[in-house]
Structure formats: C-alpha cells, structure tokens
C-alpha cells in the first residue's frame, strides 16, 4: 500500500496524543485551545482522506499497514496499524465523533478547560488507536488509554451523583476489561501462534481451530467481558448512571465510540477466531439481548424522567440490536451491526450534545419540568427532532439501515425474536417522540417560563451548531447512500476467510 497513507494513519492517532502531552507540559491556555482544535480536526481530515483512498474490494485484508517495533517482538507484540472494511467505518466514526465532541468542548466553557481538553485528546487518540490496531495487545492498550480519562472526567466534571457514578463505571468497566483481557490472553496462549497479531492469529486458528470446549470457555469470557463494556443486560446499570453524570463531550465519546469496542472485539476477534464457541453461546446471547436489552430496557426507558438518563437507557436498548445481529452469526447480521454501531454512535453523540444544549437553556434535565422550548429555540428543536428520528430508525438516517439489516438476518435465525426486536421499534418511537414533545412542544411549562424570563434564551449558536451539523450530516449521508461504507463492510465480512467461517456460514 501507499506508504504515505500508512504514515497518515499513524499521524491521525499521534496528533491528539502529542497535543495532549504538549498541553500537559504547560502550554498557555490560549494556545492550548488552538492546538486542541487542530488536533481534533487533523484526524477527521485524515479519516476522510483514507476513506476516499480505501479500496472497497480490500475486504478483510488490512491496508495502510505499518509496523513499529516495540521491542517486545518476542511476545508477538508490535504496534501494527491498518484498516480493513470493518475497521475503516469505525475509525471514521471515532474521528467524526471526536471532532464534534472536541469542538463542542472548546465552546463548553468548562472549568479547568486545559485539563478537560487534554483528557479528551487522550481519549480521542486512544479511540482512533483501538480501531486502527491490527495487534490485539494494542487494541486493548488503546482501549484502556481511552477508558481511564473517562473515569476522571466523570469524577471531576460530572453532574449529580458523580462520585457514585464514577466509582460504579470504574468497577463495571474494569471488571469487563479484565474478563476480556483474560479471554484475549487465553487465545494468545492456546492458539500457538506466538503472536498478538490478529492476522497471524486468524491464520493459525483457521488452520488448527481450538478444541470446542476451550472455544466455549474463551468465548464466554469474551462475551461477558465485552458484554459488560457494551452494557449487555443485566450488566448495564453503569451506563445510564454514568452517562447521566458524565460531562457532555465524555458522554458523546464514550457512548458514541468507546462503548463499541466490545462489539467490535466480538466481530473482529471472537466470531472469526472462535466459531464453535460463538455457535454455542449465540442463543443465550440473543435471549439476553432480545428480552433484556430490547424489551425490558425499552420499557424502562419509557419510565425515565431525566433526559440524559433516558438517552443512556435508550442507548442500552439499541445495543440489544447489535448483540442480536452478532448472535445471528451471519454476514448480513454482522454487517448490520457494523452499520448500526456507526449510526448509533453518531446519533447518540448528537443526542447527548443536544441534551446539554437544552440544559444550558432550561437548567434542568427533568422532562416533567420542560415544555414549549420550540417557540424560543426552533433550530435546537429541529436538531433534536432529527436526532430523535435518527435514533428511532427513521429511513433517511443511517440507523434505519442497521436496524433493517439486523431484523432481516434475525428472522432467519428466529422469527419470534425478530418480532420482539421489531416491537422495540414501536417502543423507541414512544419514548423518543414523548421526550421531544415534552421538551419542545405544547405550551411553555412554569419552570421554563421562569427560567426564560430570568435568562432570555438564545437559539443554537454556531459553536453548538457546527458539531451538531457534522454529526447530522454524517447520519444523513449514510442514510441516503449507505454504500459509501457498506460495500467495504460487505467485502470484509463475506470473504471466505472473513469472520464468518465455513462451519457457521450464512445460507440463504
């Protein structure tokens, strides 16, 4: 591959990390914000360039590859970067949500802005690294790099219950990460490949698969480990609490991008390396996700009064669709999941951003105290309606394609579970439209009249609009022309050597 593109990929990951380091070394504040802005923009531009350069036919093969010797070759650990059809859209997601979250943070007026930006940059760099890593060790390392700033940000800038939320998030996510780490190490040890390189692991295990019982155990570890990170029911309670407390940019990046680490791990690592284990666990995973995440959490979402918690629960619910797609063990299902991950990442980030913008104006997250904002802030209302419509799967937005594809593949697996999943579409319409109506429509509430009299509200300024437009534009582009990413995903997943191996391949 073109060496300069490989270097661009490295540059994209390095920029935010280096910028964070420079800020930490004591750069004055006014330069820090400028540097941070550059460091948020550069990866997005590189991401778009690599997307344009990416040959869809590359499939599951990694392109833009580079390999940096870390001195640990003896353990098979090297900083090997590259993108394939599945990781490219995720990388792009990280770059775009990172850009939006970063731009929003610059205008957020947070206290200790320098520290805030620095942590956000570390998180951003980590996220970009996760999806560009070909080496499983660095895949995990970058995840931790992104995760730790999240805890700190919740602990320092969080809202209500921030200490409890930070602690709970830390416990859950650390346990989840540890379980999956054990699983990954087990694969490394048992594969006999002597390497953490995903390509070598795939080759080794394709030639000589692990024993079925071993596969079952390792897949179980990965499923629950990654599952906790993605808020698989009933290990989800950290998510609404954490997102409810997290500052907006951290919530955008975590819910939008970092959370997808677990799903991405299942698709890129667990499914292709442990097909028999996956087959054994699939039905259990589907039940947990279908009944737990979609149905139970769907109803719980309806009962929420706090806007941010409601978005948090809705995000847990939508993760259910992702697990269901994975449980289908098919190209269609996994493809739908990748698309849904990207779509959900964009839409949930947009919703968290807008929730904060609403809070700036109403000084509350309590839905029962809001009402009639649309008269004073029509642009904010339009964005919120668009984000809601995206998240409830209206065609024209990316989420629709992800959900549709998951439903189609799920029917082949279990028509009954499909009915449960499709019922979720009605449930999400109920809570989504209810929230939009509570906040924006009808006559102004008493609370809102008081607040707007004391602080006359302005509609969205450009500082809020630009990040929102970036996210909305991405949702619409994928909604109207999904093939910009799906061709690559399809090639990556349906190639015989792809994640779907011969014994659990997809039959029409």
């Amino acid at each position: 591959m073109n060496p300069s593109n490989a270097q661009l990929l490295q540059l994209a990951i390095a920029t935010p990390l280096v910028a964070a380091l420079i800020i930490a070394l004591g750069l004055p504040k006014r330069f820090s914000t400028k540097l941070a802005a550059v460091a948020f923009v550069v990866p997005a531009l590189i991401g778009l360039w690599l997307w344009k350069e990416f040959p869809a036919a590359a499939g599951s093969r990694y392109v833009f590859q580079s390999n940096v010797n870390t001195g640990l070759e003896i353990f098979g650990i090297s900083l090997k970067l590259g993108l394939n059809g599945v990781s490219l859209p995720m990388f792009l997601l990280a770059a775009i949500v990172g850009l939006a979250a970063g731009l929003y943070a610059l205008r957020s007026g947070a206290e200790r802005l320098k520290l805030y930006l620095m942590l956000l940059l570390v998180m951003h760099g980590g996220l970009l690294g996760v999806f560009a890593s070909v080496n499983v060790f660095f895949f995990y390392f970058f995840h931790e790099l992104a995760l730790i700033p999240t805890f700190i940000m919740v602990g320092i800038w969080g809202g209500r219950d921030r200490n409890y939320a930070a602690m709970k998030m830390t416990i859950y996510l650390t346990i989840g990460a540890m379980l999956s780490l054990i699983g990954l190490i087990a694969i490394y040890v048992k594969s006999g490949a002597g390497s953490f390189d995903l390509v070598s692991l795939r080759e080794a295990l394709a030639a000589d698969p692990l024993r079925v019982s071993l596969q079952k155990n390792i897949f179980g570890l990965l499923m629950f480990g990654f599952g906790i990170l993605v808020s698989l029911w009933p290990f989800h309670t950290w998510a609404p609490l954490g997102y409810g407390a997290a500052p907006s940019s951290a919530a955008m990046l975590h819910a939008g991008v970092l959370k997808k680490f677990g799903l991405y791990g299942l698709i890129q690592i667990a499914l292709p390396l442990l097909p028999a284990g996956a087959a054994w666990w699939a039905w259990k995973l589907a039940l947990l996700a279908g009944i737990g995440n979609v149905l139970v959490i769907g109803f719980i979402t309806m009962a929420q009064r706090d806007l941010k918690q409601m978005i948090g629960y809705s995000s847990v619910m939508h993760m259910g669709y992702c697990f269901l797609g994975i449980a289908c063990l098919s190209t269609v299902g996994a493809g739908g999941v990748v698309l849904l991950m990207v779509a959900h990442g964009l839409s949930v980030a947009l919703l968290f951003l807008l929730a904060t913008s609403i809070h700036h104006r109403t000084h509350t997250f309590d839905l029962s105290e809001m009402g009639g904002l649309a008269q004073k802030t029509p642009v904010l209302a339009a964005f919120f309606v668009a984000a809601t419509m995206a998240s409830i799967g209206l065609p024209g937005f990316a989420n629709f394609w992800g959900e549709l594809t998951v439903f189609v593949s799920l029917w082949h697996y279990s028509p009954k579970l499909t009915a449960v999943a499709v019922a979720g579409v009605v449930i999400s319409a109920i809570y989504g439209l209810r929230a939009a109506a509570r906040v924006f429509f009808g006559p102004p509430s008493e609370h809102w009249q008081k607040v707007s009299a004391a602080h006359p509200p302005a509609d969205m300024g450009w500082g809020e609009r630009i990040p929102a437009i970036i996210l909305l534009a991405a949702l619409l582009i994928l909604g109207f022309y999904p093939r910009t990413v799906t061709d690559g995903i399809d090639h990556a997943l349906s190639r015989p050597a792809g994640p779907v191996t011969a014994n659990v391949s997809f039959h029409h």
Partner: protein
Amino acid sequence: MLPVQIATLILLLPLASAVMIALSLRQQGALASWVSTATAAVVTILSLTLIFSGARDFPASWEWLRFGTFTVSLGFKFDDLAALMLFVVSFVGFLIHVFSLGYMHDDAARARFFGGLSIFMFSMLGIVLADNLFMIFIFWELVGFSSWLLINHYHEKQSAADASKKAFIVNRVGDFGFLLGIVMCYWSNGTVNLTELADHHVFSTAIPLLLFCGAMGKSAQMPLQVWLPDAMEGPTPVSALIHAATMVAAGIFMLCRIESLMVPQALTVIMWIGTITAVYAALCAIVQRDIKKVLAYSTLSQLGYMVAAFGLGSITNGHGVGAAMFHLTTHAFFKALLFLGSGSVILGCHHEQDIFKMGGLAKKMPLTFVTFTLGVLAIIGMPGLAGFFSKDAILYLAMEENTAVFAVLAFTAVLTSFYMVRMWKLVFLGASRSDSAGHAHESGLSMTVPLVILAALSVAGGYSGVFGKLAGSVAELVPEAHGPAHVTILLVSLAVMFVGAGSAFFFYKSAATDSLEEKSRAAFGALTWLKESFDRLYDYYVAKVQQRFAMLLNFLEQIFLAGLIVRGLGGFVGLVGYGARALFTGSLHTYVYWFLLGTVLLWAFATGFL
C-alpha cells in the same frame, strides 16, 4: 427525456425543494411557498407527460445496499396502477399547494409548512413509484414522518403535539406487522420485488395479513383508526392532502400492489375489517360538531369502503383492485374538495369550526357553497356524479358476492347521506348563528380556483372518458352491472341516498344545538359513547397498563440491579477504594499525573526501556 429520467425527476424534485427550504428559506415564507408550489406544478406536468406518453414498465433499478445475499434496491415499477395513483397524488397535491398559498398566507411558520408539503410529496411519490416492498416501507415511514411534522404544525398547542405523537405511534404499531410481513416475505420468496412476487410466490396466509397491518395503520382501519380524527389538528390543507386524498389512501394502494399475494382467508379478514370500519365511522360522524371531524370520520368510513371492496372483489372475481382504486380516485377528488371547502369556510368564519355556530353561508360564500354542494352530492352518490359510479360499483360487487356485507355497506351509505346533508344544511342554510359566521366572506382566487377544478373532477371523474383514460387497464377491472342487476343497484342507490338525505334534511333544524341530542338523548349518548370508547380504551392502556408496567420494571431495576446487587459488590470495592484513596490525594493534578506516569511506564515497558 427517457421515461426513467422523468420518473427520477418526479421523485427528486420535491426532495430538492424541501432541502432548499430547510437550508436557506426558513425566514422567507413567501419565497418558500412559491418554490414548493412551483415544484408541485412541474411535478404535475412531468407526471402527465409520463402518464400520457404510454411508457409503462420501463426497467429501472439501482442497488442501494448489499450485505452477503441481502440486497435492497431502489427502482420504479410504473404500470397503469402506478400511473393512476401518480395522477391523483401529483394533481390533487398541486391543487392543494395552490390552495395553501391563500390559506396559509398569514402563517408565521409558512416556510416550515411548505417544506413539510414538499417532503410529503417526495415520500408519497416514492410509495407510488416503488418497485419493491422495502422501498415502499422506506417511503411509507417517511410519509409517516411528514404527517407527524404537519399535524404538529401548530406545535405550541398541546392538542396538536399530542395528536401528532399519537398518529406516529399508532402508525408504527401498524408498521410493526408490515415490516415483519416484508421480512417474512423476503425469506419465504427470496425477493420482495413486486413484479417477481406477482410471477411466483409461496402460498401463505400470514404474509398478506402482516402486510395488511401496515395498511390498517396508514389507512386507519379498525382498531388502529384512532389517530385520524385527532390528526385534524393539522392545518386544513394538510387534512385535505394527507388525511383524506393521498396518504391514507396509500394503504389501499399498497394492498392493490400486493394483490397477487392474497389468499381467501386473508381477504375475508380484510373485507370484514373494512366493512366494520365503514359503518362504525359513519355512526360516529353523526354526532360530530366540528366540521373537520365530520369529514375525518367520513374519510374513515370511505376508506373502510375501499378496503371492503378490495377484500370482496379479490376473493372471487379479480375486481378488487378495480373497485378499490376507482373509489380511491373519485374519493380523492370529492374529499379533497370537501376538506378544502371546509378550509374556505373556516377561514371565512374566522377560524370557527363548530357547525352549530355557522349557518347561512350559502349567500356569503357562493362559490364555496356551490362547489361544496357538488362535493356533498358526489359523496352521497347522486347519479351522474363521480361518487355515484364508484360507490355503485362497490355496492353491486357486494350484492353479487356477500349479502351481509352488502346490507352493512348499504346501511353505511344511508348514514353517509344522513350526516353529510346534516352538515351541509347546518353550515350553509338557515340563519347565521354566530358573529363569526355573520361576518363571513368568500375566499380569494388561489383558494376558489382549486375548489372549482376539484368540483369539475368530482362531477366528471366517474365517467369512463375520464377515469378510463387515467386508469388504463385498471379501469377494465371495475365491476359493472348489466341488465336487471343494473336496475336493481340503481334503485337501491337512489333509495339509500334519498332516505338518508331526506331524513337529515327534515330532522335537523337550523339551531345552535344538536337536534338529535334534544330529541333522543339515548341515541345521541350511545353514538357518543361509541365514538369515545376506543380512545378511552387506549388511554386506559397507555396510562394504566403500559406506563405502570414501565414504572414497575424501572422500580425493580433500581432496587435489584442498581441497589442490592451492586451495593453488595460496591461494598467489596469500597474496601479497595480505601486503599486507592491513599494514592489519590484528592488533588486533580496528582490524579492526572499518576495516569500519565502509568502510561509512560507501560510504554517504556513495552519498548524495552525497562
């Protein structure tokens, strides 16, 4: 231009108009309204070109998405059925755009309104042109969104906000079945392309019934009819366009599209649901005071007629599509006319909608009166007008095929002429019963010209010279009575019309109170109860069952998951936390530097420096 290019333009122009209005014309209401209306005009011209060029079934399909063996494509199926529907949507749509120029002239959010109309036209045309079920579903959902947007136009009113939400959610309940039906159809037949499905498909009762769920939502058939009366919260042109002439008819159109998949058991269900909806809604219409609500229930009833006709005709003799589409077309003309007429009345009476506060408008609004009267005569089946032919076709079909359905539909026809004449008399005859009606004035040209054109179509639309030209081979499917049957059905129709109209004319006085309520409290109460029972039932379900269930689950979640289990774990971790606190002194910088130091150490370890 090639037909496929024309079709593409027809589909994309309204989208371009909506995008343009949303991006740059939000503050320029006048310009936005002209952009939207000019687009509708061009779309109508292109549609007429396409329809009368004779081009049919030209190949057009593009792949939209592919995962493995699963593909979704975007394509056109342009046959005579689509051509007829295209005419109805584009032409009636255009007239309603023109009417809105006048009706919405003083509205502060005019740009949003016209942007909404454009996005609606885009979505509706997508359904009409679609060549496969996935594509129909996509535009189907978009139609639901535009309907939400436009019902919610007066969003500062709680009732409008509630009505739009209800419409969207009830439609989604229908779409639950619709989507499952499409997915099931995909796996059973290996395709969702309409042409391929017509050629070969497996026998299934579940698939057509699931697909029918979608039609129940969009076309507001029982028990999903509850959203349509509430949808009258939207501006009156929206009620005419979306909730009378086109969108609610999309369910009927979709049924005609999938006629080949139908099986007798499913058709029997469809027939009875349509029949029951027809009579139920007609009964409800009798006790309405709001001019738009009368028309809304009347629309429900007529949609029931179409659904019943589809079921009835398709079971035995293949006349279902013809009868349903014939009535759909004439109904689009006269119901759009009646709704726009009511809009003219409402504007003339300074936004008074209560028919008992009107009266005597015949002299004050002569053009509206004449056109509205033609609309009323068309819907009650006056011989020679459009509604007479299409309703006769359905009654004839019922008489031949199913006596029970025939009896119910004939009774519905009596009710139809009863409530229509009641409304007509109370609005236009007698003396003015309120100041607003006393000072009523005729509307401007942009509103009356569409009324005149629609009135002309309501008169002429039933003749084969007009309908046959538009519908092509669909017109050949319309059932026609011959010989003695012809005389019988003509006599039945006339009797039905005169009984209903005559009794309403002599029963209702020009008074500020409902004569029925005065003379027979029991009957009035029963009908009111009938109308409200569904809303009560649903309200009870939403507030008492669904919301309580959600609260209960939330409570359990907070107690068991967030509370007990995690505090248990938390207790253990609390201990660990004490240890950790020794390291984290509470200073933020310490916290951050520990983290950075850790990262550096790890890297150093990784690169072999340590």
